[in-house]
């Protein structure tokens, strides 16, 4: 079971601390995202990194379109991983969509988690009557088109070169570096689930302590969207970083680490 979960979610563990910190990447990335963050927590924490099923080096065969047609499917995986690794009092760090995945997991099993750190969260990307998420259905369609046109696998030659050259890992590395989703259908499905979802009503059910880390200029999750999360999560703090972009943990790791440490102190 443990082995199965480790393979399924490409679980890696590092660090020498006693407390557990589980970091989960957002849409379009994998656990490499945490490269500049993890060194700062290695001493105090046992750090668990995963790839969501369908992303990174997870087992794409485990991608069940039905299960992952809502974020609940991913939240169940998080709970399975915590149980399998026997993690307790977990500090969950979720970027973007994984902030919501963590929220759902913590609603289901509050006892597993101690703190929830959300980086660039959004409970709803699509605008509606009284809410500005920032996007419309048309924008998501455009995203899907962009995904399609940037899918490296469009050339079957490229795909077969990579598949058939396990002895040439640099090809796979190249692919990894280019962040090409090796399965276009999964990338599109995950994009739809992520950007068309609505988790606003879940925020109020979250009881554990949470921190929202908001990038000052974020085209994906604006300050208003972040504040909405903060206002609806009962025990939450909110911090704005003087950064641009949706991935402050990549573009401004020092500020991000500082905010996390301040909160965890």
């Amino acid at each position, binding site marked *: 079971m443990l082995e199965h979960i480790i393979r399924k979610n490409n679980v890696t563990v590092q660090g020498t601390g006693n407390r557990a910190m589980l970091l989960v990447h957002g849409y379009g990335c994998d656990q490499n995202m945490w490269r500049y963050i993890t060194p700062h927590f290695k001493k105090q924490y046992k750090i668990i990194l995963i790839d969501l099923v369908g992303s990174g080096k997870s087992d794409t065969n485990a991608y069940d379109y039905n299960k992952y047609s809502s974020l609940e499917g991913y939240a169940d995986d998080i709970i399975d991983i915590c149980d399998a690794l026997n993690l307790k009092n977990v500090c969950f760090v979720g970027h973007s969509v994984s902030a919501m995945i963590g929220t759902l997991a913590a609603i289901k099993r509050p006892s597993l988690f101690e703190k929830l750190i959300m980086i660039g969260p959004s409970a709803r990307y699509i605008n509606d009557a009284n809410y500005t998420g920032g996007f419309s259905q048309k924008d*998501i369609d455009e995203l899907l088109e962009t995904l399609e046109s940037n899918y490296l696998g469009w050339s079957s030659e490229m795909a077969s070169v990579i598949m058939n050259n396990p002895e040439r890992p640099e090809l796979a590395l190249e692919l990894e570096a280019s962040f090409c989703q090796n399965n276009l259908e999964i990338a599109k499905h995950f994009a739809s689930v992520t*950007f068309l979802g609505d988790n606003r009503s879940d925020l109020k059910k979250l009881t554990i302590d949470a921190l929202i880390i908001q990038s000052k200029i974020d085209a994906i999750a604006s300050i208003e969207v972040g504040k909405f999360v903060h206002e609806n999560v009962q025990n939450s703090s909110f911090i704005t970083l003087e950064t641009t972009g949706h991935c402050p943990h990549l573009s401004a790791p020092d500020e991000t680490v500082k905010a996390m440490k301040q909160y965890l102190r």
Partner: protein
Amino acid sequence: MHLNIDYKELYNTSPSGYFCSLPNGTIIDSNKNFLELISYTREEVIGEKKFTDFLSLGGKIYFENVYAPALKLSGTVEEINFNFIKKDGSKFPVLVNSVEVKDKEGLHLFTQSAVFNISQRKKYEQELIIAKRNANDLSNKLSSVNTELLNRAKLISNQKRQLEEFNEHLENKNKQLSSFAHIASHNLRAPVSNLMALKDFYNENTDLEDKEMLFTKVETVIDHLNETLNELIDSVKIRGNKDIVHDAIIFEEVFDKTRTILEHQILDSKAIVTSNFSKAPEIKYPKLYIESIMLNLLSNSLRYRAPHRIAEIHFSTAVNDKEIMLTASDNGLGIDLKKYGHKIFGLNNTFHRHPDSKGVGLFMTKTQIEAIGGSINVESAVDKGTTFKIILKKNR
């Protein structure tokens, strides 16, 4: 020849777009070609616009979630396709290559990007994609037509098999009928010529006592003839009956009825008649047939018992997936299968010099069993006994 290359001029007149942006995305320099591509003036762009300002919202999501992290993690990205928005709001497709420029300490100073207009190529790409989709559709259609053809072929081969079975059935019937015709004529000719002879004797004889004796013989032959005729008629009925009704039958009940019919013979012979139908107590089958089959088998076993030992007769059933087997075994006279095996189920074949042998029973039994897709076979040893095994198809 030496040329003094002015790199600034080269940068400016290069046939693709270049721009340089700060880590926060703000564009701090660009060449002419880039400005021409997006139809903005230098003043409108430099220090004012960010990379993402030329992207639609959908493109921005991709930029933030895929492009920017990839650039951050590997320091370079290549061949990313975006749609850029011109000043007038129109869009055109580009390929972007970007590289992070860092100082000695690894601090990210700015990003250099090259932009290639791929409008023509993109049109062609889209045509290819449409053609590919059409080809896929066609391929799907073909494969569904193929599936249908396969199904039809299967149907035809099924029908062919049914016809073959039917043909076999007809051939079988034909064989039976011709055998029947042959035997019937033969079977009837013997008693009829017997009668003719008796008639002549009767006419020629003047002694009253002799006449009476001859008439008694005529009566016996007539009875016998009548019985044979009835049995032949019965067997014709069986084979002519097409709509056979399948009843739910309990073997035990039919067997009890059979014993009652033959009670006189059982008592006379002191035979020990036993049964065990627990393995397969029931079957759906034409009741008349089962009754007739059991009656024939039991009366055969009684008739051909060994005179010097007590007859033991046992009926039982067994079952597997699709079939039920009815077994009737005895310790009677037995049949020399080497001599008679090939004609044991033929009409008018008798294997014992026995006064009651008429040679109709087993033929009828076989006909009844085969009429509904069963089979019968026999194991026997002379003076040891005989076992009949009847395979009956389970009918649901």
